[in-house]
């Protein structure tokens, strides 16, 4: 299901499919290409982000969370944006308070988004 229960109890979409379709110009092949790019990059960034949090590297957390949030926005991966933005916000403020929790939330959302997109792409075979 493309929904996520937010803190206010309202169901919000995991993926903004309109934004995603717009990003790939409605082309199914481009959509697959973008998803390969996104999940490949997201995996690398999340690994780097985990290490940066452990090492207390505030600048790296700021850089990586900003980078992934930008990609998420471009692809409509809306569920991932809030925890990443929180990590970025805190890092910009010079601290990593609550970072492991935000990171865990981002990891969980990434997994949910990955599952959703796998199902979505399975239902949309290439022409």
């Amino acid at each position: 299901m493309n929904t996520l229960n937010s803190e206010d109890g309202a169901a919000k979409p995991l993926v903004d499919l309109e934004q995603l379709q717009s990003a790939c110009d409605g082309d199914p092949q481009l959509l697959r290409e973008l998803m390969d790019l996104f999940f490949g990059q997201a995996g690398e960034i999340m690994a780097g982000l985990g290490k940066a949090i452990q090492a207390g590297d505030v600048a790296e957390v700021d850089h990586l969370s900003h980078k992934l949030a930008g990609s998420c926005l471009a692809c409509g991966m809306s569920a991932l944006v809030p925890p990443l933005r929180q990590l970025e916000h805190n890092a910009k403020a010079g601290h990593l308070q609550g970072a492991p929790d935000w990171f865990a939330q981002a990891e969980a959302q990434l997994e949910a988004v990955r599952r959703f997109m796998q199902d979505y792409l399975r239902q949309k075979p290439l022409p």
Partner: protein
Amino acid sequence: MRKILIVEDELVVRSIYRRKFEMSGYQVETAEEGAAAMKLLPEFKPDIIQLDIAMPGMDGVEVIRQIRSWPEFSQVPILILSSFYRPDMAKAAWKAGANKCVSKMDCTPNLALELVEQLLSGENTGFTPKFGIIPLPKGALAEAPPTETQIASAADAAKLKVKLDLPPAKPAWRPPAPSEPPAPWPEAQSPMFAPRLKVDLDLPPSKGTSPSRPSFAQEKEAVPPAAPAAPAAPAAPAEPAKPAFFGKTAPAPFKSPTRPTFASSKVKSTQLERMADSGEPEPVPFSPAQLAPSGPVETPAAAGPDFRIEIRQDFLKRVPQIQVELRERVSALIKSKSTSEQFKLLKDLEGSISSLATLAGITGFSRVSHLAGALDALIKDLNKKPSQMTASVLRTIAHAMDCLNVLFRDLAQMPQDIPPSLLILVVDDEPISRRTIAIALGKANLRCIAMADSTMALTVLKENPFDLIFLDAEMPGLNGFELCSELRKLPTNKTTPVIFVTSLTKFEVRAQSSLSGGNDLIAKPFLMMELAVKALTYLLKPPLSVEARIQSAQEAG
């Protein structure tokens, strides 16, 4: 006498086509909308139909479906006029049974007549015509994914420089096999803005590469440095082929004495709000000599230059009124607070912009036509989803309007050719962002060089002048602002427009952008057409105003 039915909602365009075809010996009937066309059809029994695809009420695609459902008209050739920036509509028209699609941004009456005669005589881009529904060839209709040239290593960067100095290789292109169906929109396959470096980097050929399109270097040699307002002479057999835009022969490109300075670009970009307070624009005096065709070559048999001059003059008379109308509508849109009001204003604006694109196209004012056409596509997207109208989008619309006003001001004085070859650089460390920018540029048939490493980008910028640069603000190594400050010191790119693409939208970021020498900002996530309009706004803006060119010439003695 051959009979043509013209279906077009725009009165002026309809009457221009009517006159053109009547002058050429056709019996003409016109309809202003689809339902009226369907009523006329059984009585008039046209030999061919010319149809605008975007009409209020029953749209062109539905009209084609209905025409094709009548056995009597299932074989009548249908020529479609569609927006270059809405390939989806052309594709739908093709699927419904259109025989030929042409971009109305580039369709002059002469070209329409030429295409109609080709269709009637059985010619169809060199293939035996198959009237009726032709299966859509895979990859046709500008479906080709927009290309980007990735420069990821120092070796690539070095190759770029070396290759730039070499005569370019022939573009890789293969002619279609005889068994292949004709491309429904062959014109759209010719990239309007092919980068100069494409063939140099040994990239896989773009699906859009034209067979006859010469390389940038060849184009530079092929065009004479003659006064651009002079009518283009037919090419002598020994001359190199001229660049083709949508099947037309391109005019000699305008050669500005110098590239625009950063400061002058900023001065020229008058603010819409300020313009809205300035009252009626001053009418610009035009002389027939200034209005002489500078675009496609007119064939003497079709019509003398008088017809084209006349329709151009008529368009130019309308320009002040169009300017006022557009300015008022965009100002109201910017000031409006409620969504329902914005929606209504967008609808009104869409109508005005769409008419402008068509009128400018038919009269050969290609720059205005293309910018208005792209803006029309953006506004259509916003009409579908008004929630996507952000401050960034409004700014892009306002800026495009400013650019249209600059183009209007210089309309009669400047040549209307579209720059034949443009070089766009995208520097962003996020691969997704690079790819989406390339896709967005592809909406306007623009291609780019994409780089992830800002330090390497600076090396490339030192050696190569670009026409437009997109920079991510936050990058490792040199950030976007630092890179922009550095490139402003380079003779090669000190005046190149720089647009920051960033999710940072705070005031400080805007200030940093300006302080570093950036020209504009676009917020992530952006609409595809928003970025395309933004790019066209900078690329189609006249290199220098007429006054500045005169001043520059005077300074040069």
